[in-house]
């Protein structure tokens, strides 16, 4: 049975290493500032007892006044999983650091979020539209897309 780590425990562990970067942590997920996302993810992947080496999926949800990017990570060895979230504000050019350097599986998913939701990921080697064509106006999955 995949044990889904509770956000609170992991937040407690990370509090001293990354002071002030954890905004909120509820029962099953764990919200992080987007600036410190990369090094928290680096820690989650490399720490031996967490060892979250398998990225299940990345999703973006449009809550009108902010975008929420959800990462679901799993450890194949310890058989536990964790949901990591981050938020980005502003509707013209929301920005989130890219985790392609840690998990190569994030490559196409981040391109898809950029293509359909409009969130750009800095540090992504080949960020361009994946499903729609180059001249397409607008980002279809946004709530205010006509």
């Amino acid at each position, binding site marked *: *049975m995949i044990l889904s780590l509770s956000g609170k425990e992991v937040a407690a562990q990370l509090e001293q290493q990354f002071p002030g970067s954890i905004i909120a942590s509820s029962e099953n997920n764990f919200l992080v500032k987007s600036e410190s996302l990369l090094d928290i993810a680096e820690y989650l992947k490399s720490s031996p007892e967490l060892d979250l*080496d398998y990225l*299940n*999926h990345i*999703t973006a*949800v449009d809550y009108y006044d902010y975008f929420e990017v959800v990462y679901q990570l799993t450890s194949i060895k310890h058989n536990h999983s964790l949901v990591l979230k981050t938020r980005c504000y502003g509707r013209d050019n929301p920005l989130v650091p890219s985790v392609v350097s840690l998990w*190569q599986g994030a490559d*196409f998913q981040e391109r898809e979020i950029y293509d359909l939701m409009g969130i750009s990921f800095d540090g992504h080697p080949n960020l361009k539209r*994946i499903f729609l*064509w180059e001249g397409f106006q607008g980002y279809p999955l946004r709530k205010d897309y006509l």
Partner: protein
Amino acid sequence: MAIKTEPFVINIGPVHPSTHGVFRMRATLDGEVIVDLEPVFGYLHRGIEKLAEERTYTGVIPLTDRLDYIASMSNNLAYVLAVEKLAGIAVPERAEYLRVIMAELQRIAAYLVAIGAFLNECGAFFTPFLYMFREREKIIDLFEMVSGQRLLYNYMRVGGVSQDIPEEFLPALGEFLKQMPRFIDEYDRLLKQNEILLARAKGIGILTKEKAVNCSVSGPVLRASGVKWDIRKADPYSIYDRFEFEIPTGEVGDCYDRYRVRIEEMRQSLRIIEQAMEQIPSGAVKSEVPHLIRPPVGEAYAHIEAPKGELGFYLVSDNSIAPYRCHIRAPSLMNLTALREMVIGWKIQDAIIIFGSIDITVGEVDR
């Protein structure tokens, strides 16, 4: 003195017999060796995630049929599990067993198509494909008996299944279970030591264990690389913890291992169906669920072991009748992440075989 050769760009394009649908690879070649390969998606992007936001929770089920149209029972199951997890709906026993039987039959049908297409690309032009389709027609008859449709069944509902099985279903299923193992053995005997298949598939397109995990590959491709990770065992959903079956894994992770893993998994699926047939109770097939479900505000992620890999649905609800956000974790798209590294350095015909052994469905890649 290195021979100066010029690269040559070719589109293994959207309309191509071996790209399993409208998938395009822009390959740069040096002679016949592939120097660089860029997959291009989007030729079947119907925007299912946007359409799901304008339909009720029950209305999204026909949309999920058309995702991976070779395994639409598994798509239904994944979506329905996500909604039940979100809304906290219990499912009666008989419905759980029916779902397991349908999902495992669908896995066999999807693997038959996968192996048939893979051998078709290895050069056995259409003979194994017709063999496979003859067996798949038997499974489609069973599905037609249950749901009335041949390909896109729309059979499962939130809280159970849409209708009970007719009484001649179980004897027909027993008949199918009797002669399917014979077919798999005969087919395996033909191909296990086949020199052409060994020459074409052994040691080609090797995906190492670390690269597979790092590229979030899942399903038979991950198990062929030696990672023992099957969601039916790792995170048993519905009632998969009541059946015992093994998880076959390959050693090297080349095309031949992927083929072997799929053949072994068909046998394991047959075992699961047998056990499910014996233990199936009678009773209701659908719990009382309001037609317009209004799940509480919140989010849920449920994933199953679909024939292509880990198929997951991430649902966000704002207590209205339509899902606020419905993201689909498409295993076919993830499995293609490693395609570029696996293919560079090989010849074109090996690239076609490596692509065929990953076995994607473009409906699920582009959504």
